[in-house]
């Protein structure tokens, strides 16, 4: 597949057009997906969308802190993870809620994290999912190491990692992709090109015409995928995973998409982009497209949509309530996880702080 989509020739993998019709050129690449799988994938995208929308409103209500959303990028987040196996590793940045949930994460833990609790960094049952990574692109090196470990142990899992268009400018982009290519680590590097790094537009981020072509620097395949096309995302990820499992090393996928929301709830996109631009992308919403495809196939209808959104909304509200009822972070938890066993000085600091709390109480 990668040979057929040379980014230097401006090729992009697309299967659905914007109205959800299978493109002629896309038919060939249509991934095999059962009806259940299609429904499952679509439901997962809606779940992420609803969770994001609710989270934004919780944030506005002052119930959680600043957070980024995945809105507009659900096809990439969900499609990639759905194309992989549970024993594959996911190394996220911070804008892949759809993938996190698909990987086994919970809305509750997501909300707990953005309510300021470390307990939300990880998820029940400990899926192979690293905590979100704040320093841009640093996480791609972790995926390289996980891939290295897989090769060392002779496994056939893969690692998938996500970063943004802005992330390609960091040093770790070079170091991480190079490592994976040298040791032929089974890593899928997913660059979610959502056209912005906070306020900086894609064109000002780098001189290269596409991001996928950066793969040339590492001697690995690189491909542009319509990141708003769930089926294209699944097809590309499957191909990349096969490539990795076959011992052929890493792949770079540029998911061409759009950050429909603000960078985070603290951001004001009106400063740096036009309403017209935003509106032009509304029609490309990955959910609209997939829904049309599903409706056409009689797998989906408005009633189901409404029911699903209601169900998901209730799940979120319930999760939010649970998070609000969580106990505050115990003092001990600030100290006990820094090392396997608490060094004496840390123990002293904790005891002194507890003594202070008691003193304060007694004043």
């Amino acid at each position, binding site marked *: 597949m990668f040979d057929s989509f040379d980014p230097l020739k401006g090729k992009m993998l697309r299967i659905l057009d914007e109205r959800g019709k299978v493109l002629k050129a896309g038919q060939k690449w249509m991934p095999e997906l059962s009806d259940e799988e299609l429904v499952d994938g679509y439901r997962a995208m809606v779940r992420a969308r609803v969770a994001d929308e609710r989270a934004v409103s919780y944030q506005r209500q002052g119930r959680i*802190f*600043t957070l980024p959303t995945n809105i507009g990028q659900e096809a990439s987040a969900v499609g990639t993870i759905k194309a992989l196996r549970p024993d594959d590793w996911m190394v996220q940045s911070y804008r892949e809620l759809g993938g996190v949930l698909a990987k086994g994460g919970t809305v509750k833990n997501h909300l707990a*994290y953005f*309510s*300021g*609790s*470390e307990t939300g960094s990880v998820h029940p049952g400990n899926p192979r999912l690293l905590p979100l990574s*704040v*320093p*841009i692109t*640093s996480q791609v090196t972790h995926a390289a190491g996980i891939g290295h470990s897989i090769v060392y142990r002779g496994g056939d899992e893969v690692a998938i990692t996500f970063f943004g268009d*802005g*992330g390609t*400018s*960091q*040093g*770790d982009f070079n170091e991480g992709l190079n490592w994976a290519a040298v040791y032929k680590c089974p890593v899928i590097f997913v660059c979610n090109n959502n056209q912005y*790094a*906070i*306020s*900086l537009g894609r064109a*000002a*981020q*780098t001189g290269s015409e596409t991001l996928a072509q950066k793969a040339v620097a590492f001697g690995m395949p690189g491909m542009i995928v319509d990141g708003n096309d769930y089926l294209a995302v699944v097809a590309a990820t499957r191909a990349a995973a096969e490539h990795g499992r076959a011992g052929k090393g890493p792949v770079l996928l540029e998911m061409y998409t759009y950050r429909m929301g603000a960078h985070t709830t*603290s*951001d*004001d996109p009106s*400063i*740096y982009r036009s309403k017209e631009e935003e509106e032009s992308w509304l029609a490309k919403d990955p959910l609209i497209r997939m829904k049309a495809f599903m409706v056409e196939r009689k797998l989906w209808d408005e009633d189901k949509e409404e029911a699903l959104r209601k169900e998901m909304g209730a799940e979120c509200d319930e999760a939010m309530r649970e998070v609000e009822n969580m106990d*505050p*972070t115990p*003092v001990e*938890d*600030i*100290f006990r996880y*820094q090392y396997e066993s608490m*060094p004496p*000085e*840390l123990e002293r*600091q*904790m005891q002194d*702080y507890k003594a*202070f709390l008691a*003193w*304060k109480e007694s004043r």
Partner: protein
Amino acid sequence: MPAMNLVQAINNALEIKLREDEDILLFGEDAGLEGGVFRVTQGLQAKFGERRVFDTPLSESVLLGAGLGMAVTGLRPIVEIQFSGFMYPAMNQLVTHVSRMRNRSRGVFTVPMTIRMPYGGGIRALELHSESMEAIYGHVPGLKVVIPSCPYDAKGLLISAIESNDPVLFMEPKKIYRSFRQDVPEEAYRVPLGKASVTRQGEDLTLVAYGAMMRVASKAVEQAAKEGTDVELIDLRTIYPLDRETVLDSVRKTGRLMVLHEGPKTFGVAAELISIVNEEAMEYLEAPPQRVCGFDTIMPLPMGEDHYMPTPERVLYAIEKMKAFAE
């Protein structure tokens, strides 16, 4: 005299210097068009154009490295690092080039660069958005490290920093970016680097703080006064070079030293101050110096943050302990 908050005072200093000197460029991630995520540089691109004030790719190492390249050709770059927690990717440039160029080239090449970055906790932020690691930078030979605590100082210190022919790391206490206003002269003025200021005279104890912790210190000191302890409060203002004399003079008078900072306690700024006082004025010490600091842990996420951040009460608690010693 207009009343300005910290953000306005910094913006004003930047505007004055940009207007004055064409060799000054200002850049950073999102620092141009939108004026930075805290809007500290708001309006500057509109005033000075995209050549002078610009957004950069997301890459801290080259922010400093390119800044150094500009500097050796005679420009005077002002670089913004979006949060101090994102300085680490640029650490190599900072430690091995920016801070060393003058010495290793025997003064032939210099780096008159100002690096601004918001630091510190208390704003309920994400991971790595609340760091306070000034001690690390203070330990790097060749850097000057400056932390203002109020609008007036911020403007004067920043102008001094920009005019310094040495690289200056200018750490901005984001917690108090918009907390309060002060009268700030419209014209340029300088607050010298390397000079602490005694913001309150007192007889019983010397409390040294800086940055956002000065607000905490002030509250504590007021309360302490009510409870009968007369604290002398020093705003350190510069982490390196430290103003030894102001601190020493004060401790010689009060006989007691307490240092307050957000950064982790061990190997923190407080330790150096205590050591200086030991070396020069030990015989004046009437009680063991006290440190009120962050813990030797990472900054907790918001739900635990209030435990981590020093409070006026923690200062009062330490004062009480100190008094207990005297008895």
